[in-house]
């Protein structure tokens, strides 16, 4: 199972990167807020496994996982978080605005939801230029409350654009649970009224996610319109920052338990030959420590760079 190995590698790579980010964070080398995706990696890994280089993904400020899964440059990502000139935004974006146009990662906004129409615009361009490419737009559950989500769904469906919206429903926007934000949880049903095939995935399986993405993407390449996936998940860490926050009173550690028990990283590891897991681990550790070393060694931008890139 080649794709099993590939998925595991991606999952594990993301996990190791995120844990390293969390580890170094208190030393203040990272010059941005960080929104970790630990626990949610299976979504980005599963979805991006269905994509090709000509495809695009739109990510969020909680975008490390999808950036990595789509093949974004890891060195440039870590350097960006360190505020270095070699960062993917030359230190002008920070961790909330990762981009790698070469890898098809089209950027992230720190204003929740606002990347949804931008991603839709990429899909419009893909359709117009007949590239055969598709766009995946990752969003959180909170982003679906913004008006531009409804506006974008309608437009994407009206023009039958090749875009897959993936909602990572971790049940919270910062510390506010769905019950305080959603009148009902009939999100997929709502999206379906636009004529968009919509499916909810609750089993936490990277394979289920991958299969659903493959199916949706295949239909789009055949000229089908948009599709929608709502994928339940759990955010293991605090909203922003490196720590757990189950002691803060707004949610209980029980919420994590079932997710931790079926952690995809561990589950996939257990199904691969130990030697292979070990080899992957060695490789990943080398890659990750090289990336942090690269970031560390890279120079900061200098004052004189400030005015670059205001205009093209």
């Amino acid at each position, binding site marked *: 199972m080649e794709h099993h190995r590939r998925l595991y590698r991606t999952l594990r790579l993301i996990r190791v990167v995120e844990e390293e980010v969390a580890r170094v964070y208190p030393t203040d080398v990272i010059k941005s807020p960080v929104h970790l995706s630990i626990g949610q990696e299976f979504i980005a890994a599963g979805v991006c496994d269905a994509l090709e280089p000509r495809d695009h993904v739109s990510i969020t400020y909680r975008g490390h996982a999808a950036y990595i899964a789509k093949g974004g440059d890891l060195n440039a990502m870590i350097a960006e978080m360190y505020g270095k000139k070699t960062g993917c*935004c030359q*230190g002008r974006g920070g961790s909330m605005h990762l981009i790698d146009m070469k890898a098809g990662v089209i950027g992230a906004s720190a204003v929740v939801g606002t990347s949804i*129409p931008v991603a*839709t615009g990429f899909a419009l361009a893909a359709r117009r230029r007949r590239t055969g490419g598709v766009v995946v737009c990752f969003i959180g559950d909170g982003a679906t409350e913004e008006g531009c989500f409804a506006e974008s769904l*309608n437009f994407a469906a009206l023009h039958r654009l090749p875009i897959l919206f993936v909602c990572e429903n971790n049940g919270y926007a910062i510390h506010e649970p769905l019950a305080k934000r959603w009148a009902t949880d009939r999100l997929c049903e709502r999206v379906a009224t636009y004529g968009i095939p919509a499916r909810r995935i609750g089993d936490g399986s990277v394979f289920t996610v991958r299969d659903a993405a493959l199916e949706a993407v295949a239909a789009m390449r055949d000229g089908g319109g948009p599709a929608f996936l709502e994928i339940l998940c759990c955010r293991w860490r605090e909203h922003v920052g490196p720590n757990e926050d189950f002691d803060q009173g707004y949610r209980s550690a029980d919420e994590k338990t079932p997710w931790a028990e079926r952690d995809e990283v561990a589950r996939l590891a257990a199904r691969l030959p130990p030697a292979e897991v070990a080899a992957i681990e060695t490789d990943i550790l080398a890659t990750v420590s090289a990336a942090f070393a690269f970031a560390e060694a890279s120079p900061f931008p200098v004052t004189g760079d400030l005015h*670059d890139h205001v205009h093209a």
Partner: protein
Amino acid sequence: MTMSTLEPGSASAGRLLRYVDALREAFAQEMERDESVFVFGLDVDDHKSIQGSTAGLLQRFGPERVFTTPLSEDAMTGVAIGAAMAGMRPVHVHIRMDFLLLCMNQLVNIAAKARYMYGGTVKVPLVVRSMVGKSWGQGAQHSQGLHSMFMHVPGLKVVAPSNAHDAKGCMIAAIRDDNPVIVMEHRLLYPTEAYVPETAYEVLPGKARVVAPGGDATLVGISHMVVECLRARELLAEVGISAEVIDPIWLSPLDIATIVESARRTRRLVVADTGWTACGAGAEIVAAVLEQLGPEGGIAVKRIGFAPTTCPPSPPLEAAFYPNPGTVAAAVHALVRPKDAAWTPDPERAKLAHQVQFRGPF
């Protein structure tokens, strides 16, 4: 009627063309030249075709490149930005500038910042067309000139052509520009004519135009106010005051040097704007000129614009809300002859031809 600020200098000066037709010609020529240009926005493809400014484009370029949208200004702006980042050149059309308030987040938080915050790895070659409505009951929400909000934001360019020649040249320049450009058109300028070359040309940022020379005062007019300033200049000439009228054309980046040079000479600076004055384009021009003049300063300044109220549709209120050639002339007079009694030209003579003609519907 004819309102030509640009006289025919040579055969290449072109034909007399209306502002609206000059805009249309710009779209047609650029769409012909570059496959990636497309024009979209509410009602661009109906039989009224945005007062005629997009007429014929649908027939010529088809519905993939000329299409209306749902009423979703916010998302449609994001769509335009995404398409632009992906290599297209969208022209997104709004029949009222007031509606841009629905898209401020996309314009300011995304379009203006994308290139910078993504470290120069993307371009956003986006044109946002918007029209300022004026008079005949446009009222509170169909009348605003919001250019100063966009001038405030690094990463956006802003242009406000005042005549048919510039309408075409600026629009072509905006379409070819690799940055987001907010184009502020003015409804009352649509029927005005100027000499417009037939071939494509660009009126680029960086050069304000001295529309009419003068020695006693520098009068900067923005958008439609250029026309009203020229009329004010005539009225002032009758009382022996000579005003130099400058059209900045591009508001961001702004050619402040031309204005500084003039103000240094005339020692008096009046800016007449089609918007409110507080934190407006006039404030920017006055402050920038004075910073540049430095300690030699000592020039008299005045901003003119909308009254600091919401725009009222009732005619007597509306008349008081807007500056006009008479109020502009009176302001210049007050600066030039501060010791004289206030002077106001005969209101009848101060009326503007195209202003009087315009009547609804929208």
